[in-house]
C-alpha cells in the first residue's frame, strides 16, 4: 500500500473548528488542536465533555459533522480504511470476542489488518508476552480480570504496529495495581516512539502519561498546555485543605470563617466538604489560619494538581 509520509513538521492529527452533532445535541463544539508525532496527548474532562466523540472522529468510525480534521495528513471521510490501517484503538468498552480464546482474539485482528496467519501469530505471541498474558493464551476471555482484559485490548490494538495509538479511558474501573501496569506498558510504547492520544477523567493519569493536554468541558476546549504549565497558569504551587467539624444544625464551622482567611491566599475555594486555600506556601498559610483562631478538624498541605485546574476552570470537580 502506498503510504503518505508525513513530514516531521506536520502534525499527525490536525483539527480546526471540529464539530460533532447528534441530531440537535452538540457533542463536540468547534475544537482546535494538533498532535505532533511522538507526543503523548491527552483529553482531560468529566463524562459527557465530548472526549469520546472526538476520539471516534479521529478513529474515522464517526463522521465529522463540520470543521476540519486530518489524520496522518489524510481526510477521514475519504481515506478511512487507510487511516485505520495505521491506527491502534483501545475503546472505552473492551469489546473482546467471548467466543474466541485470548490468542485467537489477537490472531483474527491481525487478519483484519491483512497480516498472514504466520505473521499474525508471531506478533500475537510477542504481544501476549508484552502484556504478560502468555500463560492465558489458550483461555477464554470471560474469566479474565478487568485488568487482564484491558491489557489484552491494548495488545490487540498493537497487532498492526500502529504509529498512533488512541486510548479512550484506558484505566477506568481498574484497581491501582492494574492501572500502574497499564501505565507502565503505555510508557514503554511512548519510549518506542508511538504517538499516544488518550482521554481520561483522572488527573493523575494525565500527569503520568501526557506531555501535553487539553481540558474539555461541555463540548469545548477550555485550556491547553503541559500538566505543569496548566498548574502554573491556573493554580498556585501548593494547596492547603481545611476540613471543619460538622455541627448539629448541619452547618459547619466553615460557614463562620468571617473572612478570617482573607489575604491569606491568592484564591479560596469553598467546597461542600472542605475549603481549599491556594497559596505558594501551604505550611505558612496553615500557621496563619491557626493564629487567626481557626480550628479546623483536619489540615492537609499538598501540591496542586490538574484536579485544581479543572475546578478553577469550570467550578466543578472532575469525578463526581
Amino acid at each position, binding site marked *: 500500500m502506498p503510504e503518505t509520509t508525513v513530514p516531521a513538521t506536520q502534525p499527525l492529527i490536525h483539527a480546526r473548528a471540529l464539530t460533532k452533532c447528534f441530531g440537535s445535541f452538540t457533542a463536540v463544539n468547534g475544537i482546535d488542536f494538533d498532535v505532533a508525532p511522538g507526543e503523548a496527548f491527552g483529553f482531560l474532562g468529566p463524562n459527557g465533555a465530548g472526549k469520546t466523540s472526538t476520539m471516534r472522529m479521529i478513529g474515522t468510525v464517526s463522521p465529522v459533522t463540520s470543521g476540519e480534521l486530518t489524520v496522518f495528513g489524510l481526510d477521514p471521510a475519504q481515506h*478511512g480504511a487507510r487511516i485505520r490501517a495505521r491506527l491502534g*484503538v483501545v475503546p472505552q468498552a473492551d*469489546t473482546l*470476542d467471548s467466543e*474466541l480464546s485470548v490468542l*485467537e482474539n489477537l490472531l483474527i485482528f491481525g487478519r483484519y489488518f491483512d497480516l498472514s496467519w504466520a505473521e499474525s501469530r508471531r506478533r500475537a505471541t510477542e504481544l501476549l508476552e508484552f502484556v504478560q498474558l502468555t500463560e492465558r493464551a489458550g483461555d477464554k476471555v470471560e474469566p479474565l480480570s478487568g485488568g487482564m482484559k484491558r491489557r489484552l485490548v491494548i495488545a*490487540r490494538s498493537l497487532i498492526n504496529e500502529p504509529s498512533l495509538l488512541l486510548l479512550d479511558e484506558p484505566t477506568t474501573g481498574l484497581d491501582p495495581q492494574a492501572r500502574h501496569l497499564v501505565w507502565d506498558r503505555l510508557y514503554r510504547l511512548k519510549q518506542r516512539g508511538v504517538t499516544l492520544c488518550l482521554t481520561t477523567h483522572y488527573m493523575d493519569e494525565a500527569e503520568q502519561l501526557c506531555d501535553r493536554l487539553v481540558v474539555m468541558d461541555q463540548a469545548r476546549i477550555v485550556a491547553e498546555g503541559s500538566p505543569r504549565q496548566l498548574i502554573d497558569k491556573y493554580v498556585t504551587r501548593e494547596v492547603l485543605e481545611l476540613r471543619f467539624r460538622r455541627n448539629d444544625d448541619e452547618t459547619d464551622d466553615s460557614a463562620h470563617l468571617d473572612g478570617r482567611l482573607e489575604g491569606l491566599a491568592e484564591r479560596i475555594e469553598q467546597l461542600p466538604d472542605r475549603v481549599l486555600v491556594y497559596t505558594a506556601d501551604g505550611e505558612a498559610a496553615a500557621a496563619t489560619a491557626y493564629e487567626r483562631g481557626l480550628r479546623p478538624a483536619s489540615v492537609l498541605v499538598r501540591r496542586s494538581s490538574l484536579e485544581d485546574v479543572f475546578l478553577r476552570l469550570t467550578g466543578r470537580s472532575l469525578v463526581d
Partner: protein
Amino acid sequence: MTVIGLRLARPGAIASRRSLRVLEHDLLVFRRGWYSYVLSGMSQPFLYLVAMGIGLGLYVNRNGSLPGGVPYLDYIAPALLVTQAMMAAAFESAWPIMGKIHWDKTYHAALNTPLGALDLLAGDLMWVAFRATLLSVLFLAVIVVLGAAASPLVVFAVPIAVLTALAFAAPIMAFTATQTGDGGFNALFRFGITPLFLFSGTFFPIEKLPLWLQPLAWITPLYHGVAAARSLSIGQVDPVGLSIHVAALAAVALVGLWAARITFRRRLVV
C-alpha cells in the same frame, strides 16, 4: 482468490474482499465446535424423516392423495432440507448478530480496523451461506441413504436451500440492526418463522389451505424454496416454474440486502 477479490473490490460491489476476513472470523468460531454443528445437522433430518416421512407417511400413502402419487417421505424430505436451512439462517441473523452489534459489540471493535460496516454484513451473510450449505449437504446425505429422492437432480436442492437461507438472512439482519434487545425476535419467530415452517407447503400442498390464505403463501420465500427443491427432488421439473421460484428467492434476498446495507450503516456509522 485474486479474481474474486478484484471483482468484489469494484465500486458498487456489495463489499470489498475484506468481508472474507469476517467469514474467517466466523469459521474460527466454527472450528471450536464443528462437531456439534455436524451432529445436529445429521440427527435432526434423520429424526424428522423417520418420524414423519416413514411413520406418518404410512397413513398418508394409504390414501394416495398427494399430487402425482408421490410417497410422503419423498414429498417432505426436500421441503425439510430447505426448512432447516431457513431455520438456521433466521437464527444466525438474529441473536448472534445482535450480540455483535449490541451485547458484545465485537462489530465495533472490528470497525477500528480497515473493515467497514458493509464488510461485516457481507462477511456474516457468507457465513450464513456456508452454514446453510453444510447443513443441506448433510441433509442430502440422509435423503440419499433413506432413498427419499426419485431424481439425481436432488443435489440442486442444496443451492436452492442456500438461496432460501439468504432470502431470510438478509432481511432479518436488516431488522436486527434496528433492534436494541431480543424482544422483537420472539415475535419474529412466533408469528413469522414458525407459521411459515408449517404453512409454506412443507407438510401438505398449499392448495389445501383456505383460498384466501394461498396468495399469502405465494409471497413467502419459503414456499418458493420448498416448491423448487421438491420439483428437483421428485424429478418433476417445470423450467418456467423453477425460474419463477429462483427469481422470487433472489428478489427477496436482494431487497433484504439493500435494506440491511441501510440499517447496518445507520446503526454502526454514527
